[in-house]
């Protein structure tokens, strides 16, 4: 969706046009769900977070700052809700058993061409769980959701230097983790 159409839909939504807001929901809910799922890795919880995020967006739409894209604001809401969820302890312990390969599977020495994409995804997300909160958020937004550096800084209200520092530590830990798991060096 181009910025002009988006802004037009936002203005209509502020005036109470539900149909315009539906279009915004339809075009952004994929990103919101994806982001929530990267944090929670639970379908139901991710859907709940997305719903809550859009309701918050609707209620506060009149305070929208046209300087930023709606995507940035939405990412901020979803990120905060996801972190609240993770801190609240509602996160089920069974999740790790359901969504990840067995520990023995991760620990075994595997050859590079054995790397199944699902398995790799699970391992990377598991490693991301061990990062600090800021490192995790920066890593998910920048590397997994492929937001630009500027968008990440805007979303997290972080300086570029702070963002780079968190990203460095996150990538370092992920690389070291992957190397430990696959034992054989990537090169």
């Amino acid at each position, binding site marked *: 969706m181009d910025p002009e159409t988006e802004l037009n839909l936002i203005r209509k939504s502020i005036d109470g046009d539900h149909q315009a807001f539906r279009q915004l*929901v339809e075009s952004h809910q994929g990103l919101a*769900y994806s982001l929530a799922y990267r944090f929670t890795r639970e379908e139901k919880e991710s859907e709940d977070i997305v719903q809550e995020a859009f309701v918050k967006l609707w209620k506060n739409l009149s305070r929208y700052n046209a300087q930023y894209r709606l995507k940035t604001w939405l990412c901020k809401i979803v990120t905060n809700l996801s972190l609240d969820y993770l801190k609240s302890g509602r996160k089920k312990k069974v999740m790790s058993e359901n969504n990840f390969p067995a520990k023995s599977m991760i620990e075994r020495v595997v050859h590079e061409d054995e*790397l199944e994409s699902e398995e790799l*995804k699970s391992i990377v997300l598991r490693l991301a769980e061990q990062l600090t909160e800021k490192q995790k958020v920066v890593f998910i937004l920048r*590397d997994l959701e492929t937001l630009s550096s500027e968008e990440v800084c805007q979303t997290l209200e972080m300086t570029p230097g702070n963002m780079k520092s968190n990203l460095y530590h996150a*990538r370092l830990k992920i690389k070291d983790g992957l190397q430990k798991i696959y034992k054989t060096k990537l*090169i």
Partner: protein
Amino acid sequence: MSCKDYEQNIYTYPELSAKERSHLDAHLQNCRSCLTLFQEVQQTQQLINQIAEEKVIPPHAARLTGSIMSKIAQPSKRAFGEWIIELLLSKRSKFALSGLSSVLLFVFCFQFFDDPAQFKASQASSLTNSVILNAKLFRENFSRHKEKRTLFADCRSPFQSNQYYLNCVKTKLK
């Protein structure tokens, strides 16, 4: 600059400015260990990019949109509820409700202290019946009191003692 100083830039190569990149590129041409690290990082990033390319899609997108839209429609209902609360909390309704409750409390006390047995009996029937019955009893009691008051009216005198009043009442009752 030492190799350690370049480490952070190796990990954050895509985030570097053009100037920082050219500095790092120049160092990588002369430093084998940094070049190895750079290649390792790039390879890890390629794996992560593979994951990023696999977009996570909501399994029930239409249902999700529907539930968001229905949640958004709810506030209008809540606004009606809020309107009711606002009305109840307004000054005018506060005065009206406090006046009504005082009247009801007065009627209740009057009835109860006048003849508690009758009041309790009325509680057994339905609300409407008890209201009618209580109103009737109230009227009867009121007229009985009025009669008594007129009967003993001439006994009352500001110039006589209480003893005189009691003796007068006793004589009238006899």
